[in-house]
């Protein structure tokens, strides 16, 4: 590593950026870039990261950063990668870095298409579970029961969070995974693994948001941990849509431990809490089955080959 690479590993972007105090996106971004290194080009749609990077003519980014329109991350990244390959530069990682709005909702079409084409770049969705940049409006990533400005009290979100990981797994892309900034080793291992894989890689990064989830700015990492420990956000990988691997066996704490720390869930009634627990338990159970099945089919495949 030369000095600029060493410097990059110390600080992969500049301080003085405009993130809220306690923003987990910055923690995730820092860890991710440290794992990927400076030969990275960022494609960022309209989202918090757009504003965080700062105002012309300054930037917090130390790698080239292309700002792109809201729904275009996956398409623009496809174009960037195509141009790089056309000019013979095959060792540069193209990193799409989009929020949940630009991934689950408006950017979903381009995302699905790029995945279907197995475009060769890494797409990261940092998920703060609402349109936070425009002031906390619901997205299809907003979990059941959450308050947002468009699901205010009396009409809080009564639909479940879209299961983006399973949707992306269904595209049979080489690599899909979930990461939380509270598990930095796991996060960085996965980015390093993703870097070495060719084809479409999708990484779902949980990004607790003090401003939108209504909690004290010092609890972002704690919530990032509780989300995993309560089985609400399991850490797992899916390869080629077939092989499931759960990376961490959580403590299985009750969902209340996580929900009670957040103002956006303060209004939940006991029956709603119970319902959420039920759903989480069911999903976790199904994930365990998927892992078990994929292990069995691996064994079967192995024995068929022998």
């Amino acid at each position, binding site marked *: 590593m030369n000095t600029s690479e060493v410097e990059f590993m110390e*600080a992969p*972007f*500049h*301080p*003085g*950026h*405009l*993130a*809220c*105090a*306690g*923003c*987990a*996106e*910055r*923690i995730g971004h*820092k*860890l991710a870039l440290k794992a990927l290194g400076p030969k990275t080009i960022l494609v960022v749609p309209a989202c918090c990261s757009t504003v965080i*990077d*700062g105002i*012309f*003519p*300054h*930037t*917090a*980014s*130390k790698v080239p950063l292309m700002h792109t329109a809201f729904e275009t991350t996956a398409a623009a990244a496809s174009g960037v990668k195509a141009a790089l390959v056309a000019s013979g530069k095959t060792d540069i990682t193209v990193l799409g870095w989009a929020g949940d709005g630009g991934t689950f909702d408006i950017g979903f079409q381009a995302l699905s298409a790029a995945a279907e084409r197995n475009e060769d770049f890494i797409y990261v969705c940092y998920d703060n579970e609402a349109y936070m940049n425009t002031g906390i409006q619901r997205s299809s990533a907003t979990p059941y029961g959450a308050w947002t400005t468009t699901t205010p009290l009396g009409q809080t979100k009564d639909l479940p969070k879209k299961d983006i990981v399973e949707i992306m797994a269904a595209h049979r892309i080489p690599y899909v995974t979930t990461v939380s*900034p509270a598990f*930095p080793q796991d996060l960085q291992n996965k980015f390093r693994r993703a870097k070495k894989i060719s084809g479409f890689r999708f990484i779902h990064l949980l990004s607790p948001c*003090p401003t939108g989830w209504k909690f*004290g*700015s*010092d*609890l*972002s*990492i*704690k919530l990032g*941990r509780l989300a995993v420990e309560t089985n609400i956000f399991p850490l797992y990988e899916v390869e080629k849509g077939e092989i499931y691997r759960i990376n961490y066996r959580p403590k299985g704490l009750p969902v209340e431990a996580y929900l009670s720390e957040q103002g956006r869930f303060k209004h939940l009634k006991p029956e709603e809490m119970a319902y959420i627990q039920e759903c989480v338990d069911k999903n976790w159970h199904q994930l365990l089955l998927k892992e078990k099945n994929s292990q069995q089919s691996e064994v079967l495949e192995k024995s068929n080959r022998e």
Partner: protein
Amino acid sequence: MKRRVYTNQQEMPEVAISESGSEWNLTGTWSTVVPVHQNKNAPCRIDCPVGVDIPVYLDLIKQKKYLKAFKIVKQTNPMPAITGRVCYHPCEDGCNRKILDQPLAIHSLERFIGDWGLENVTTRKLKADPEKGKIAVVGSGPAGISCAYHLIKKGYPVTVFEKESQAGGMLRFGIPEYRLPERVLDRELKSIFDLGIELRLNCQVGKDITWEELANFAAVFIASGAYRSRKMNLPGENLDQVKPALEFLIEANLGRKFDLTGQKVLVLGRGNTALDAARTALRFGAEVSILSRSGREEMIATPEEIQMAVEEGVQILELVDVAGFEWIDPNQIRVNCIRLQREVNRSGQIKYSSLADSQFSLTGNLVLVAKGQDADLQILPQNLTKDSSSLEVDQWGRTSQEKFYAGGDLALSNKTVAYALGSGRKAALAIEAYLKKMDAQALEENILITKETDLNLDYFAKTPRETESLLDPQVRKVGFREVNLGMSQESILKEVARCFSCGTCNSCDNCFTFCPDLATYKNNHQYRVVTEYCKGCGICVQECPRDAIELMVKFGEEL
């Protein structure tokens, strides 16, 4: 660096391309609070009477930096190989780890590093400067040695006066071989005296040399100990078969062999002296019972001593009080006892009262009385003991007379090796302050303590405490071999990994890893907050497992 605002289109690029970074934007101005890296005291350190910086040396053992760990311990405690065997380890009672699983086995870890030091480190003689002032220390027990040790390290020449023919005080005469082998004691003492402390044996101050002759010394630390066994003032106490337990121990430690085969020995008491006397008598072949006024849980002796005694076959008779002794024949004695009952009052205090009509008697061949020791104040200079019932000292060991300091069993109600060592160290600090004409208030230390609620336990998983290996009870009760073999290297490293390092940064990097604003600067193993950019989110404070960062309110900040 400032924010760029172009003044004319000619200066501008054709598109919105960045010109430079965002470092001009001092986001530190957003916050009204700032985290400050500040070590606090771990409860183990506060509870240690010697003041050993436990989390620091445990972390060094974890990194296998044994020499550094040893040096940290020796900053306050001159004899870790000894305390690692005999101390009653109040540090473990205060250890925050107990709220997760079990407290750290600090005692075993200290023994490990003490033994390592004896094997691997040689003492160099220090240069003492007589101009600074010569110090006299009366008594070569742990208090006296500690004071001498700390003063010689500060460059003061020290002379220790010991009335016996060997140094060590209670360490040598009161503690049995199977707990503290003589070879360990001798080696440890040698490593201390080799620093250049003058030792004058067979020299009792007040008898072989007068107090007035000590006038040439700039200061005097008196640690003459407390070895006068307390009397129970019961009928029959003066009979031959009733001996003070300490006397028995001293004789045994001096090498006298008792043949107590088949003898019934009754030990009266509930502290370590009672346990030591009981287990020593056992090794001489006796059948031993300890009669304790309190219940077993309330016995003052360390629980492991009691456990080991029971394994060896000592009987513990709890809640028994003695009314008197009766002569049966030259070898036998009757001990008249009465049962006690335990009452717990509303404030949780335990009180014992006699149970009516519960008298009974026991027959024994030898009774050893271990009801505590008092100091002999007669040997002290007159002007120090005006009241003559006790010697008044403050927390620094200062007496009513300038230049005279006292510590150890002589002056403290808590008569333990740990407190003795601590008092010696404090007196050394006070002596230096006195000789340098400094205000003793300057000696006060920071007392911020990390409570268990200050810790972030998310970073620790339940792990059971490692155990030491002990000699089999049947094997060890025959003879005086050292019972506790300590912990294996593997166990040591596993055990130090359990230390929370309360209040003491051990470079886990959490603050650096989790800062969203690149506002924690890391250099070597030191961390500093970059206040120009820190937004005061507090994540570093929350995620520090060990309360080594504090969130403070900014005052009078210029914005």
